[in-house]
């Protein structure tokens, strides 16, 4: 059974487009959608509405940077500070490359980021790359040396 992909996105349009993109990447993983940072933390820490969910961490966390209540950075920080979650890959979704918070995201140990491209095809390509890398190829436990040499995810996807 594949681990699910956790997608945290508040904007309904972005959410829909991202889901389409994930669908097109033909990943077999289940996609769990959460709509804000607080809900994401509840899910990850199995509390609140999600206290009864099954055990296990998602294959990858796709995290929008700007989220209501608890923003992406705070979620990232919480993940990196929690022993059982620490090694989970986190990919930040951002609206632009110039985002000042990006630096902080790196500081907090994000694995990659995707600038949501305006061009839909590019977006599909970026999401699909990410999904394949993190959800499929990154199956073995994180930290494995083999992984570090693998191809890096396509980041800053709007660079042409």
């Amino acid at each position: 059974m594949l681990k699910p992909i956790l997608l945290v996105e508040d904007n309904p349009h972005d959410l829909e487009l991202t889901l389409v993109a994930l669908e097109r990447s033909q990943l077999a993983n289940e996609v769990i959608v959460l709509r804000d940072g607080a809900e994401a933390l509840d899910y990850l820490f199995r509390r609140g509405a999600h206290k009864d969910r099954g055990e296990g961490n998602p294959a990858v966390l796709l995290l929008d940077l700007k989220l209501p209540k608890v923003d992406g950075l705070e979620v990232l920080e919480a993940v990196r500070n929690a022993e059982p979650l620490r090694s989970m890959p986190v990919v930040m979704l951002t609206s632009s490359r110039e985002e000042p918070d990006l630096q902080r995201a790196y500081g907090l140990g994000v694995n990659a980021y995707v600038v949501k491209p305006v061009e839909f095809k590019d977006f599909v390509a970026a999401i699909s790359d990410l999904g394949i890398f993190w959800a499929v190829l990154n199956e073995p436990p994180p930290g494995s040396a083999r992984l570090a040499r693998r191809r890096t995810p396509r980041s800053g996807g709007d660079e042409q």
Partner: protein
Amino acid sequence: MYPSERAAALASASEVCAREPIHIPGSIQPHGFLLVFEASDLKVIQASENVADLLGVEVAGLLGRHFDELLEDAARLRGKLDSLASEDRNPFHLADVTFRVGDPGPAFALMVHRHDGVLITEFEAVDDGTAAYLDLYPLVRTFVTRLQETPTAELLCQLAVTEVKRMTGFGRVNAYRFDALGNGVVIAEDADPGYPRYLGLHFPASDIPQQARALYCANRIRVIGDADYRPSPILPPLNPVSGQPLDLSYAALRSVSPVHVQYMKNMGTRASMSISVVVDGALWGLISCHDAAPQRVGFQTRTACEMLGRILSLQIEAKETHANADRRLKLREHIVQMLSLMADRERGSVAEGLLAAPDVLLGFARASGAAIVLANRCELIGETPPREAVEALVRWLAEREVGEEFHTHNVGRDIAELTELSRYAGGLLAVSLSELHSHYLIWFRPELVRTVNWAGKPEKHLGQGGALNPRHSFESWQETVFGQSLGWDRLEIDSALELRNAVLGIVLRKAEELAQLAGELKKSNRELEAFSYSVSHDLRAPLRHIAGYAELLGEVEGGRLTDSGMRFLANISESARFAGTLVDNLLSFSQMGRAALHLSDVNLPALVDSIRQEMLPDYQGRTVEWHVQPLPILIADAAFIHLALRNLLSNAIKYSRTRDVAVIEVGAEEHPDEHWVYVRDNGVGFDMEYAGKLFGVFQRMHRMEEFEGTGIGLASVRRIIERHDGRVWAESRPDQGATFYFALPKRIHARVSR
């Protein structure tokens, strides 16, 4: 002697002449005699030797005797003596007196003055007092009445000269006026036939040594009745109480320096009288009377002449004060005019203000040219030396640390180091506008070739034994003076300094305003950056959605759309994509303004290579000839320079795509302070008329169908280069290709690197 030795000997003799103690000659002119009384006990302590001739008593017979013993009616005289104003040292006609000693003889006119702790009494033949009332006072009265109607100093002097001649009967009366250097020019003359005329002639300053000028100021009238006199010595030579020689500064009978006697003889003059014209405490001029025969000038006449001289002095002073006030007012008006232009915030600066009214700037200093040297600009107005010469002058002024002001009417002499300069200007006046920087306002006056008519060559001669002989020739001698301009007078210099101080005030205020403005600008810039950032950022999301849904719509429902529908959909996608690019470029443009520069060596050749590789897809299938010339290694922010160069190269590739063979050249030029880098193409070019707009945000030179673009590329280039304190510009002709330049200073200012 060699000329230089001769000049040195002459100079040293002149110096000796200037040191001659003419106020203590130790003798008097013999047409009167002199007694010196100790001031408190009124006993005779010194007397002139000629008492023996004029009074019939030897000096020895007078020494130690009391005032009362010597004179009739002494008690009354002493009463008058006590009422003498103690501060007035001019000889005062006490009374006509007769002596109780010596030969019974005519009465003497007694003139007294106190000086240096003694009472000096001078005795001359009695004047006819009635004659004075009948002749002199009406003359003086007429003179005074006419003075008020006379407009200029020259005409006043003419009037005075005529009156003095009538009152005294001297053969020739001249009025001199002294210039700033002490040379005298004859401005009025009245002379009998047969006398040489001096009107318009110059007399060199050396004719009247400094100490003589001082005496002329102190003692306003001076008579030498007969140059051929035998001086009568004062006995004993030293005051027995003080041990000092007698100070005859104020005595009418004071003996004359032998040099002056010789001067008079050379001039063919037997008798002379001088009336001082003193304006504002300085010797302004002289009324000088000469006669070929000895003249006796009675004290009545002397007093009347002295009075006339004083009235003349006051009148001239009033007129000059008035004229000066008028000029000062005009100069002030000019200053105010210039200041208001400078202070005008619309125009913005000192230089702009001054340039706005060149006529005022020049007219203010009666100059034909001016230079405004401020910070990195040097503005030339009117007739000035060429820019390089002015710049050399500025360096000269700065090195000399000339202070607030420097002026010369003889550039060739005073700024001999700059040989070029005197070819363009005779004189200049410079005021410094900063204590720290070489900021100056400079006015230039042209050379004024003028002819000076000297009364004889202005040279003295050395006689036997190296003593100074006054010149012999008073024949008119013409000198042509080259290389000099009109002199700068005190009023002009003062006004220039006044302007300077006001300008400094403005500069200071402007600096404060600028600092404040800069602060506000910085703040509003920050706000603007933040605003544009968030707008662009927030715009991106909906653009993404439009593009995404249009794409999806095309995929899902494409089959049910007409061709037009599909085209509309494609346009929607295309527009959204373009708007996205626009937003992205704007974001990175704003980033360029904010991000700190990280300076390092930038290897330009490598950079160009990598950009060519990077852009390969853009010109695949085209023929592009690359000419990459040797390029320097710059010190700059590598990422930014990469971006700038990529923009320039991408433009070159884009705008040359209509050419069968595109030729793109990248090169560099080394200049003293800058590296220039250029990118040249053989593309469509642009009209230089729009060159000013080229580097502005959203400025485009071509229609979208011809050449796509967001109009941010060149604006980014400019922003990047200007962040490095550099410059950008371009040259082109429509259809003739274009060359884009950027210049980076070799020393990038420290403030850009953090």
